[in-house]
Every structure is written in structure tokens, then in C-alpha cells.
């Protein structure tokens, strides 16, 4: 139901999203999921957003105070800060389809999901 609302915006940005994608990946230390998430995210971005993305990795073990700002509960979490609106994906990002939906890159499938 939610993607419906987001569709007009995403469809306009679909042909050629002009802006730089800023992604924040919250991890803790080097847990299995954290490591997997980083590599999955990297692969995904290389495949879908080549040259238009920047990933900031935040290790909450080292910077725990940053968790509050983005309301981080789950680890790993990816927060799309740009383009707006902010989108959040939790998990080790192993499912590409879910990634596309979560990042508003494929609205058509999102409806089916």
C-alpha cells in the first residue's frame, strides 16, 4: 500500500536519477551479518547505481551515540539519506528484490511484494 504513494516520485526519478545516492550502513564490529551486509550492499550498488552512490559505514560499537539519530534498532541497517525521502532497510541485504523495493528502485515489483 505504501509504494503506491511513493510511485509518482519514484517514477519521475526512475529514468535517470540525477543525484548522488548517499547510503549509510550501520554495523556492529565485524559480525557475520554486518560483513555480509557490506558486501551485499556493495555488489548491489555496483549493479544498480554504479558511479552514483556513496556508502558510509558506521560501526556502532565504536560510535554508539550515532544509533539514536537514525533510530537504529536492527543491525545491519541501511539508511538511504539521499535522495529523499529517507528509506530504511534492515537485514544482511541478501535479497536483491527486497533491496530494489526497499530503495524504491523498482516500484512495479514493490506492488506485487
Amino acid at each position, binding site marked *: 500500500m*505504501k509504494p503506491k504513494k511513493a510511485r509518482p516520485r519514484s517514477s519521475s526519478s526512475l529514468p535517470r536519477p540525477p543525484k548522488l545516492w548517499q547510503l549509510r550502513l*550501520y554495523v*556492529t564490529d565485524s*559480525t557475520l*551479518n554486518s560483513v*555480509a*551486509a557490506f558486501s*551485499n550492499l556493495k555488489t548491489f550498488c555496483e549493479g544498480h547505481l554504479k558511479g552514483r552512490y556513496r556508502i558510509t559505514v558506521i560501526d*556502532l*560499537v565504536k560510535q*554508539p*551515540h550515532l*544509533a*539514536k539519530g537514525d*533510530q*537504529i*534498532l*536492527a*543491525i*545491519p*541497517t541501511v539508511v538511504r539519506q539521499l535522495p529523499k*525521502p*529517507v*528509506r*530504511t*532497510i*534492515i*537485514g*544482511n*541485504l*541478501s*535479497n536483491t528484490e*527486497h*533491496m530494489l*523495493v*526497499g*530503495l524504491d528502485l523498482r516500484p512495479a515489483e514493490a506492488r506485487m511484494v
Partner: protein
Amino acid sequence: MKTNHNKATTLAVRLPRCPTGIQGLDEITGGGLPRGRPTLVCGGAGCGKTLLAAEFLVRGAVQFGEPGVFMAFEETEAELKANVASLGFDLTGLVRRKKIAIDYVHVERSELQECGEYDLEGLFVRLNHAIDSIGAKRVVLDTLEALFASLPNEAILRAELRRLFRWLKDKGVTAVITAERGREQFTRTGLEEYVSDCVILLDHRVYDQIATRHLRVVKYRGALHGTNEFPFLIGAEGISVLPITSLGLNHKISSERIATGIARLDAMLGGRGFFRGSSILLTGTPGTGKTIVAANFAQAACRRGERALFFSFEESPNQIIRNLHSIGLRLEPLVKRDLLRFHSARPSLYGLEMHLATMFKEIARFRPHVVVVDPITSLMDAGTDSESKAMVTRLIDYLKGGQVTSLFTSLTQGGHALQQSEMAMSSLMDSWLLLQDFEGNGERNRVLYVLKARGMAHSNQIREFLISDRGIDLVDAYIGPSGVLTGAARVAQTAREKAEALAGQQEAARRQRELKRKRAALEQQISGLRSEHEASAEELRQIDEQVGTQTRLLSTERTELGRLRQADVLEAARPPGTSKSKNGNS
């Protein structure tokens, strides 16, 4: 590692407690929540879960020097501060002084996409960070279950919650986790499964349009605790759980006696009044003067320099003062000197528990020696029978615990003096005075008698109870062949007796007078007779004299004759004196 040993040690060693500082809760739980363990507080909406948790934290920070972390899942920091500010808690200041840390956890499910495996390490990191940043000893998670609505994968969530509680224990913090009440289980999502050390249930029930909150310690592993449902309130100073019922009958007992303010009543009670710290029930039909006796009792206490607290559920303080002024009881100066305090409230103002709490609070604040509740019956109407009896029991226990002498007036309906509620109540009371109306001869009179007075000799007689503008007086009622007479009948009877006595006196006087008269008459008679007697004696003497004269004359004549006839013979026979007397007479 701590948790591993817990089961073994609970039996031998008493669990250390973490005092909540919440009035009454520490008494029920025997000192507080289990230290270093999570406690589950569950209840329906509007039960006061958040407030209880917040108070636990604030009191910990303020009273016990234990900083705390409040992790809010429902309210934002600003909302929370505003909400507890109504209880007088300065959360903002505590946060600034690093006594309390607030973390608002909020996840919008619609903004969240799940993709692959994850855990809730972020929550742990945040909690850990908050705890370490202020050195927290206490943690509140309010309401953790909100996560179930935020996170799509329940399986992961449950696993993580289990881990969270274990982690909290390992961290050594005393945690309070609030949860919504479920239909068949304590919590909607079955959190009690993870928190097994202490479960507290809050409840909010409405009976007869009056809502009362209840608290019950459902479970407290390894500890004795009150399992009853305890009413609690949220007042201006936070939560107070009530009461604090003394679980045993081991009050300190005083043999000191205190005067009732009515000398004759003291006399009826063995001459010295009631025992200090005893409870007195004063029942009576409407208009028998219960309030007056009660006020006398309070005034007597004030005169001794003691403090008296007067709970009135029928009249306003000013009304009582005015009314009693009309019988010569001046309470105003006592109020001004703060020896006497009034507390008036309509019984229907709030529930029984709230009344009780207010009374406790007033008593604790004023620390009176004497408490009057006028009347207890109208207060009891605010609750069910069992509730009210429990309430009175607790009130009496509380008062006795503090050696406070208490007087409860009780209103009975005309006709039957002893009602069921009083029968129940009377067993709690040490002394029972009964004020009653006596009807007859077109008037209504008050009588008073002592129905029971534990531990003291007391009069079994009925006294007539008079109220005048000089106060109360007790007079002996007339007890005669026709029963007890009071009022005009008593006065009439006394008058009749007086008249009878008077008549008797008059009769005696009359008879006395008559006898006197009779005696006087007799005396008169006697004197008459005497004069008669004297008269006849005189007559007798005269006769004697006459006879003597005649005899002399005769003998003289005879001698003359003899001399004339020269009768010598008769010379010798003549008595010697005769010639002399003949000489003398001649």
C-alpha cells in the same frame, strides 16, 4: 554468570532488593524489586504503568543515588517529561544533571524494509551506551512490546528479547519492563515468558462509577510477598500503594487512659475514659448527637495539648464549628492554634481507596493523637461491603500502629439500632457507645449507654444525654416500675415524687398539730380538775375549822354550866388545857 547461580542461591540467601521509593510498594515486596533483575509491570491502558516505571527511576536517581535509563518506545522525550512533570518530577533537570538518560526508540514500520537476516544489536548498543554514559543502575523499557508492531519478523524479535533480558541481568541493572495486559496471559505478547523474576500486575476497575486502581505482585521469585490486590493511587506526589496493612496483630498497647471530654461518660468508663490507641465506635440514629460527642472528644484532646484530626464526610468544617458553637464548644481557637484540623470531603468525591489514601496522607502529615471519622458509614457507602470492611480494618490498623485513638461515628437508621455493617465493624472496635432516641409522651429524648468497652469496667446503665447551650450533660435516667423514663416523663416522675413527699410532710404536721391541741385540751382539763380539787380541799378545811369552833364553844358552855351548877365531880375530868384555852378564849 550471575544468572547461573541464582537458582542455587535464592533458597539460602535473601535476594537483594532495589528499593523503589514508591510509597507502599516496598512494603508489599519486602524491600523493593529484585536487584539486578528485570521486573515486568503489566496492565491495561491507563493503569499507570509508565508512571510507576518513571517514579521508580526518578526516586532511584533522587533518593537512592542510582541513575537510570528510560527507554521509551511509545512517548517521545518531550511527552514523557511533560507527563511526569504533573507528578512533580523534574525529569529535565535530572537529565541535565546526568542522573537520568532518556532514549526514545521509534521505528516506523512503513518506512522499513526487511531484507535478510538481522538482529537487534542496535537496541543493545543504544541501551548499553545510555547505561554507560551515566553509570545507570536502573533501566526502564516502556513499552517494549511496541517493537512487535514495528518489526516484521516476530521470530527474530522474540529471540532478541530473550537475549535482551539475559543481557540486562548480566549487566546487573534493575530493570522495569512495562507491557500491555493480555487477554489470557499477563501480557499481550507473552513477555512474562522471558521475565520470570518479578511480575507486577496493575489494574483499573470501575465499581459503581468509581474507578480504583489495584496493584498485585503476581510473582516474586524467591521471596515472600503480599499476594493481595493492593489499591494504589496516583496523586500529586506520585504513586502510593495502599496500604501498608499490618499483616499481624502486634500493635503496641498502651494502658494510658484519656478523657472523653464528658465527665459523666468518663465515670461510666471506670472513671478514666478510653484507652489511648483504642478504637471507639459511636453509633446512633440521626440527630442523637454523634458529632457533638465526637467534637467533645476532639476538644478534650486539644485541651490536653494533643493534636486532633477530624474527618468529616457530611459537614464542612465551618458548619461544624458554627453548630458546635451553639452548644458552647468553641473549636475555632483550637483550629487557629493548629491543634485541631478538619478534613472534609463528600464520600462520593472519589473511591474508597482514594479516601483512605487521602486520610493516610493527612494522618501522616499531621501526626494526630486523636482521629475522628464522622461518619464512617457514609464513607462505607462508597464501596462494597467487603471493601469497606477491609478499608476500616486497614484504617484501624494504621491508627493503632501509630497509637492514635480513633473515634468513628456510625449512622444507623431509626428503628433497628444494629445493622449488619455495624455488626461487622463492631468486632474491630474496642469500645462501642450507643446513642439512642427514646420516644414517648410526645417527645424524643436521647440516651447513651456503653455497649462494650474492652478491658475496662464500665457502667451498664442508661444515661440520659442532654444537650444544652452549655454543652453535654449526662443524667441518670429514671428507672422505675414503668421502665426507663426520660425527658419530661422523668421530670414529671420526679415532680410527682416530690409532691408525694410534700403531702406526707403536711400530713405529719397536721397530725402533730392535732395531738398538740389534744394535749393542750387535756392539760386544760387537768388544771380544771386541779382547781376543783383545791377548792374541795379548802372546803374541807373550812368544815374542819367550823367543827373545832363549835366543839370549843360547846365545852366552854358546859364548863360554865358546871361552874354554875358547882359540879365538883366533873373538875377532875376536865382536861388541863381546857382551863387554859378557856382562859385564852375568854
